[in-house]
């Protein structure tokens, strides 16, 4: 997924759309907004980032999961099988992005890229709702996908590359 920080307005529509799509309980969320401000008045810079699980290629949350509930599914999506999850929270400790939370029903939950939608060829709910069209979702292995092209033509960064997790959310600048 690529996120265009030049266009995001921090409206959190992506957060609400995720909650209604995925029935996320009140008080929790799978995605969230970060506002960055730098400089002093009137020489300022600001952007917003819509963040969520990075679906890391080298996911510490998967490595440390004692039951195998956290796993990497087809297409590189990191998922938690609710029934196998014992709620030990080891994965929460290991995630450098704080992308996971304990669902009130005892299992650990996080962004699934709306797997139920992708399976049907739809975009994740956040991507389809974003009023600024700043979220792009697609296949990074396909060099001609919208995301691959965006990464080819634009500058981008990932979060906490030093953690070595090989995150798969790319922030376009």
């Amino acid at each position, binding site marked *: 997924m690529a996120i265009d920080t030049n266009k995001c307005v921090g409206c959190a529509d992506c957060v609400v759309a995720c909650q209604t799509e995925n029935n996320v309980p009140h008080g929790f969320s799978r995605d969230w907004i970060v506002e960055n401000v730098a400089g002093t008045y009137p020489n300022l810079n600001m952007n917003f980032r819509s963040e969520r699980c990075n679906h890391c290629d080298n996911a510490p949350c998967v490595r440390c999961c004692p039951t195998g509930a956290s796993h990497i599914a087809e297409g590189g999506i990191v998922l938690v099988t609710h029934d196998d999850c014992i709620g030990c929270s080891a994965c929460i400790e290991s995630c450098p992005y704080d992308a996971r*939370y304990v669902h009130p029903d005892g299992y650990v939950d996080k962004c699934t890229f709306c797997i139920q939608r992708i399976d*049907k060829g739809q975009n994740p709910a956040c991507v389809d709702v974003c009023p600024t069209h700043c979220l792009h979702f697609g296949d990074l292995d396909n060099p001609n996908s919208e995301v691959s092209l965006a990464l080819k033509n634009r500058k981008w960064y990932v979060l906490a590359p030093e953690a070595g997790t090989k995150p798969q959310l790319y922030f376009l600048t």
Partner: protein
Amino acid sequence: MKTRRQFIKISTAGAGVAALGLHSLKVKGLNLLGEENTEEPVSDEDMTATPTYCEVCFWKCAGWTYVDKKGRIRKIIGNKNDPHSNGRMCPRGTGGLGMYNDENRLKTPLIREEDDKGHQYFRKASWDEALNLVAANMNKLRKEHGPECMALFAHGTGGKIMSHLIKAYGSPNITAPSFAQCRGPREVGFFATYGEGVLSPERTDIRDTRCLVLIGSHIGENMHNGQIQEMSEAIDNGATIITVDPRYSTAASHSRYWLAIKPATDIALLLAWMHVIIEEELYDKAYVEKYTYGFGELKAHVKDKTPEWAYGITTIEPDVIRRTAREMAGAAPSVIVHPGRHVVWYGDDTQRSRAIAILNALLGSWGRRGGLYNPEKVHLPSYPHPPYPKPKRSWRDAFPKGKYKLASEVLTSGICDATIPNPEWDCHLRGWIVYGTNLMASLPDQKKTLQAIHSLDFLVVIDTMPMDITGYADVILPECTYLERYDILRDSPHREPYLALRMPAAKPKYETKPGWWIAKQLAHRLGLDDYFKWDNIEEMLEWQLKQKGSSLEEMKRIGVKKFHREYDDLYNLQNLEDCEFNTNTGKIELYSTELEEEGFDPFPDYTHHPEPPEGYYRLNYGRAPMHTFSRTVDNHNLWDLMKENKVWVNPKVADLWNLKNGQEVWLKNQDGIISIFPIKVRITERIRWDSVYMVHGFGQDNKKLTRAYGRGANDTHLISKVMEDPIMGGTGMRGNFVTFLKEAPANNRKEDKA
């Protein structure tokens, strides 16, 4: 483990990312549907989608309400064929189901009672009893004082049917805060120039523009859906955005130029821009010659309004003024100097809007692609009814003859004045119906509002939520939310004419009823059945749709229908086509003969406005993308995103006062009015050192709003000074100044919150 599970992580200025404010809410197993449930997502095919258009704000985006097999509303998704939403609702529209699910909703009709000890309370009543009581009061008032003593405050779609009722009853006093507290000066200023207003949604062709100029208009924080989407498209297309705002708004952060202007000096900048464009001969000569009136006078008027002159007033460097003027001219006619929406600032707002209108004319953007397009709406015939009775008097009679003559809509403040008994005016207004607008958060000068309310014989409030205004009602009629009702068709103007249908996705919860039903029931009790000859609204909609070659059945299927334009082209002045404007001269009036006739300045001029006294800061207010005024503050989904407003303070000011981030303070204004609840400090470089800022709509004082009660401060409460626009009666609200109280004042209600 770090507790960072919160939605909006706000950073402190200058220091990259730092998360502030922790999410402490832990609701055991409650899902968004307000019930214990761990169900997996339901796929779209397993749900029924019914068409609606959103009522969380005035943009009225069309969408689909998805209902699962158990009849529960699961989500709201935009309708792809709708130009307001283009298939994408904004966060408030997406979270609109929080309005339906809100357990704090008004549930039954309520009637004010008093016990023997003089203690007043609300008693639950049946619809019959409540409607009979309202009708008895209205019948009595009509008989004893005349129907013109009744006023209606109406906001939103349902307000239209209430207006129909009140017109049939015989009163012309139908008002809404959207005029005198919002876009009125813009409509009057553009009308004086072009003989037409800007309308809603605004006729701005942002999608195709090459240069967008925003003057205090914080698109992105105000979530006017279509505009945000188009602004994003314009960014993709490489358009230049110029934002003029003393605050570093979201829009400013997306702009090539941010002009950090000194508050209250915008007209000086606009005049200097005109000066550059005229003196450097950058204006559209053919356009100006063919269409405009008074160019020579304008040239003389701005002769000495040099960028150097404006620099001393606005603090914007002359070079920046010149560069931005050239950018606009370079993009012309695909340039928009945006008229804004909430423009009641300093009392010279019609003149500022005029300056914006004139600048657009010099650039030749009105009627041009990428400028201001020529909108069209579907002309829907109304269901046949007898003519409305002719009112014998109106709110205007409470004022000297000719006052507010250019107010093209009824003034809320004028209604308040006409309600307060006055020896000069023997028949003050005595009954109000307030429909869907929380006057305590929308009208400045609360003292006057309350004085008017206390002068009333009776006050009826129709709403979905127990907002502050309901606390003053004699009778409260609970309406169901937009997701549970039919309403009139949406026929707003756009690039092409469209109709949109709203139909219920679920049965009204509790004992709530749709607005159309309430209006019809009252009409019956007032002997006005002839005005509501349909049995239910479906019959009325069906009739209207048939006139347009459609049907209810078709609209239920498609939600939104596009019609062909019947009048001029979308870009009707693109190639200098002939055009007669609806002004005195038939031209675009750079020089306003209408204003001159009424004794006002035919050209906008800069006037110096008062500045904050020592130790005080200008109170600036605005919007957050996840809330619509006070209407949404109790919506659980949106409350999750933003629970309270904070007062933005520049770090220098924070140092001076030794304020800490997150510290609670009370605000006191220039008239000694102190905020009822404390508000937390947000220290940020995004605000100037002479101003503070807060998001409007918070600090609600009704305990029934269990989530919103006492969260943050109510800016409206602190706006006691009104800078009235003499041209059209707009209530300028940006001339109020506040200081900080670090200790709880005597009127503090913080303890009540616990």
